[in-house]
């Protein structure tokens, strides 16, 4: 079960660039009290320095940094963009779903990653996420 509450989900959000999309997904974690503002900067810096490897599958990015960059508790946010954005990935652009993740130690978030991979790797659930009109529709889609 994914730890997604309404406060960390945005459907049909607008972002013009990859950085804007990452900041939006990160800001949901900050507003929910789960990460510090510096964590968002660290995610953006990671994307700038290491590149678009966070686009793990066609249309899906999982920006993150490391626990020491300011994660208060294990967390996940989900932003579905109204218009897809180019992250610069050779195979998986453009991106429409941005899931920011944060963990508090090196391995404690494995369960959350597994749950996320199994939801996003399930074509029916992914379609449900892409088509959900409301948060409750999204919740039903990922169960």
């Amino acid at each position: 079960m994914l730890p997604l509450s309404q406060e960390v989900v945005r459907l049909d959000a607008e972002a013009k660039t990859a950085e804007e999309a990452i900041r939006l997904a990160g800001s949901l974690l900050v507003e929910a009290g789960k990460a510090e503002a510096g964590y968002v900067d660290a995610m953006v810096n990671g994307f700038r320095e290491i590149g678009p490897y966070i686009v793990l599958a066609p249309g899906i990015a999982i920006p993150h940094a490391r626990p020491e960059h300011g994660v208060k508790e294990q967390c996940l946010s989900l932003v579905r963009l109204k218009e897809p954005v180019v992250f610069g990935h050779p195979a998986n652009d453009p991106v429409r779903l941005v899931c920011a993740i944060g963990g508090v130690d090196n391995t404690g978030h494995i369960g959350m990653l597994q749950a996320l991979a199994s939801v996003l790797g399930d074509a029916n659930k992914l379609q449900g996420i892409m088509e959900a009109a409301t948060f409750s529709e999204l919740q039903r889609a990922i169960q």
Partner: protein
Amino acid sequence: MRVVTVCGMGFGTSLMLLMEVQAIAQKHGFSVDGEAVDLGSAKGKTCDFMVASGEIAAELSGESVEVVAIDNLLDKQEIEAKVMPVIRRIADTKGA
């Protein structure tokens, strides 16, 4: 045999890959241990093979072991199709 999975931070996609590679290996009757590391720590790590996203794999071209590049990390079939031949080859070579 031992795998090192690699991503930018050693924290997200590399952990996903490690879990998936181990699950696939186990399904085929092979035991693979390993660790997930960031790109900076990956260079020169002792292992039988490495797995990374295509982006990161390109940075690992200087490694002495085979580096498997995965485009879609959520596609179990792609991972299985690319990783199993390597695992079988290593198992044959080691006689394991």
